[in-house]
């Protein structure tokens, strides 16, 4: 019998706010001492009152609009009760009855073509703290710096059917949320985490099989491996009766390449959801809604079409540039400053992206000044700075984004001088040092002078117009 895999994802994304969702503590604890960003509210002390961070609602709404969701204009918070030491209040404040966004749609593309994935809902909630188990054997240490850091949970319908589709879906989510600048979405940093709900059923059946959930997966590769393993385990159980499948939560061990049962799956009743009496409904009025709608970015496909149709870029260039909003913004600012979309695209793709790759930086980590890049492009295209030295200036701009290219070029002797006296002197010395190249050239091997040309350019530190140098070199040899 042939089987099909049915997958739904719950993706937790940490929102890029400065402060936590219900208190004013910093939401960023990287490098901080344990429990340094805490207060009575995020420590769950009795009597504390949460106050909603407006930007969390802004970002929740924006994420919803990016994923084509309906925005609930009255959205409420609820208590999800469970006991665990990383949750100091013994409940998580989340959204159950009226989440901020519902009924969305995300289009993905795989080797099998395009497909729509329905979004059931996006809800806003607070993160839990961190437990540390390896300081002492008899005790677990608790750090509440992460409690109440704002998250959105994006819940898909079970519309995915393979590891490839899951990967495409996650990449699409990342791209859209990064375009909207609501989240970093970096699985390696824990700012995007994923729970995978998976079941298997005979192909063509409309009845869902027994569902298992794998929690807190934090790399796309691990998710793909887990899906493949879990699919095989389910099919084996159904075909060969190797085990009885039960609805449960499982832990994926990426080193062993296996999943292990953690606990039987909780149902909503176990969490005793009820409206949080400490947080009144959030009412999004027209003015608030419009202010967020107005800040939505151009979608990647719209941007790509504009780059090809209005700016005259090729499909490949437009595709490369629209891979990240950081690349797009740098390109567009550089284009404004230099006036040539093709030159700006060329520098972005051949030089900027090369440096990013060489430094093992993601495209979203790009932090150079686009205006300065535009000025650099003008300096090189006008012949004021040689291309090789232009690349050196660009590398320096990656280290210090306040660098002004022209001043940097002047300070480092990168301005092309075209001092013909100096060029002639340099050419004469190079010719005397390489008589064989000269005789080869004179005997018809035109390329023979390239070694002399290169030596001259190196001696002049790239600060001369290649055309001027070439002419002086050929004239000098011909007059010998």
């Amino acid at each position, binding site marked *: 019998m042939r089987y099909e895999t049915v997958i739904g994802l719950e993706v937790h994304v940490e929102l890029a*706010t*400065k*402060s936590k969702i219900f*208190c*004013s*503590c*910093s939401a960023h604890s990287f490098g901080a*001492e*344990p*429990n*340094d*960003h*805490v*207060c*009575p509210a995020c*420590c769950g*002390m009795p009597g504390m009152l949460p*106050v*909603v*961070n*407006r*930007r*969390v*609602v802004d970002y929740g709404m924006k994420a919803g609009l990016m994923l084509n969701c309906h925005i609930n204009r*009255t*959205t*409420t918070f609820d208590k999800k009760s469970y006991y*665990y*030491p990383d949750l100091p209040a013994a409940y998580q404040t989340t959204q159950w*009855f*009226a989440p901020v966004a519902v009924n969305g749609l995300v289009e993905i593309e795989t080797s099998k073509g395009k497909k729509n994935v329905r979004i059931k809902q996006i809800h806003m909630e607070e993160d839990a703290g961190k*437990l*540390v*188990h390896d*300081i*002492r*054997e*008899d*005790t*677990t*240490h*608790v*750090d*509440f710096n992460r409690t109440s850091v704002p998250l959105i949970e994006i819940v898909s319908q079970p519309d995915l059917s393979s590891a490839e589709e899951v990967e495409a879906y996650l990449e699409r989510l990342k791209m859209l949320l990064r375009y909207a600048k609501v989240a970093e979405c970096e699985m390696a940093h824990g700012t995007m985490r994923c729970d995978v709900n998976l079941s298997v059923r005979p192909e063509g059946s409309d009845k869902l099989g027994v569902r298992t959930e794998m929690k807190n997966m934090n790399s796309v590769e691990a998710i793909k491996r887990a899906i493949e393993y879990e699919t095989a385990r389910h099919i084996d159980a159904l075909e060969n009766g190797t085990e009885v499948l039960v609805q449960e939560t499982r832990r994926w061990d990426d080193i062993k390449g296996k999943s292990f049962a953690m606990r039987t799956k909780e149902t909503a*009743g*176990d969490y*005793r959801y009820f*409206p949080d009496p400490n*947080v*009144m*409904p*959030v*009412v999004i009025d027209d003015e608030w809604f419009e202010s967020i709608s107005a800040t939505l970015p151009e979608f990647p496909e719209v941007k790509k079409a504009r780059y090809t149709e209005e700016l005259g870029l090729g499909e490949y260039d437009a595709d490369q540039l629209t891979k990240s909003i950081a690349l797009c913004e740098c390109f567009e600012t550089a284009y404004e400053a230099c006036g040539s979309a093709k030159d700006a695209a060329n520098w972005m793709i051949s030089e900027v992206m090369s440096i990013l790759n060489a430094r093992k930086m993601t495209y979203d980590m790009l932090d150079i000044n686009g205006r300065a890049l535009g000025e650099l492009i003008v300096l090189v295209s006008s012949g004021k700075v040689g291309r090789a030295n232009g690349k050196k200036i660009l590398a320096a701009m990656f280290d210090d984004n306040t660098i002004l290219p022209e001043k940097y070029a002047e300070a480092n002797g990168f301005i092309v001088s075209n001092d013909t006296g100096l060029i002639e002197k340099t050419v004469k010395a190079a010719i005397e040092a390489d008589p064989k190249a000269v005789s080869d050239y004179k005997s018809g091997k035109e390329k023979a002078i390239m070694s002399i040309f290169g030596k001259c350019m190196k001696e002049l530190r790239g600060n001369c117009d290649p055309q001027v140098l070439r002419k002086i070199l050929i004239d000098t040899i011909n007059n010998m």
Partner: protein
Amino acid sequence: MERDTLRRLEMLNQLSLTDAQKEDVIAFFAARDAELKTLEAIDTSDTERMVHVMPIMTVVRDDVIIKTFSREALQQGAPETDEGYWCVPRVVE
């Protein structure tokens, strides 16, 4: 309210009811169930969903970091701390 549901709720809420209390709870929910069935018979398809019993809304604050408490102040009442962490009995994962 089924007896299994009640047993589960007892467990979740760490309660232990006497047989008499269980009968009271079951009878109470049976009456509420009948009331709810009456309400469910009403067509509410054109009625806007109520999210709160009072016409009130939350206040929101700006996304600004304000440090209000020191760790030492918050951990004054803790039974045990170590290197800035709260300590709890070991959790087996």
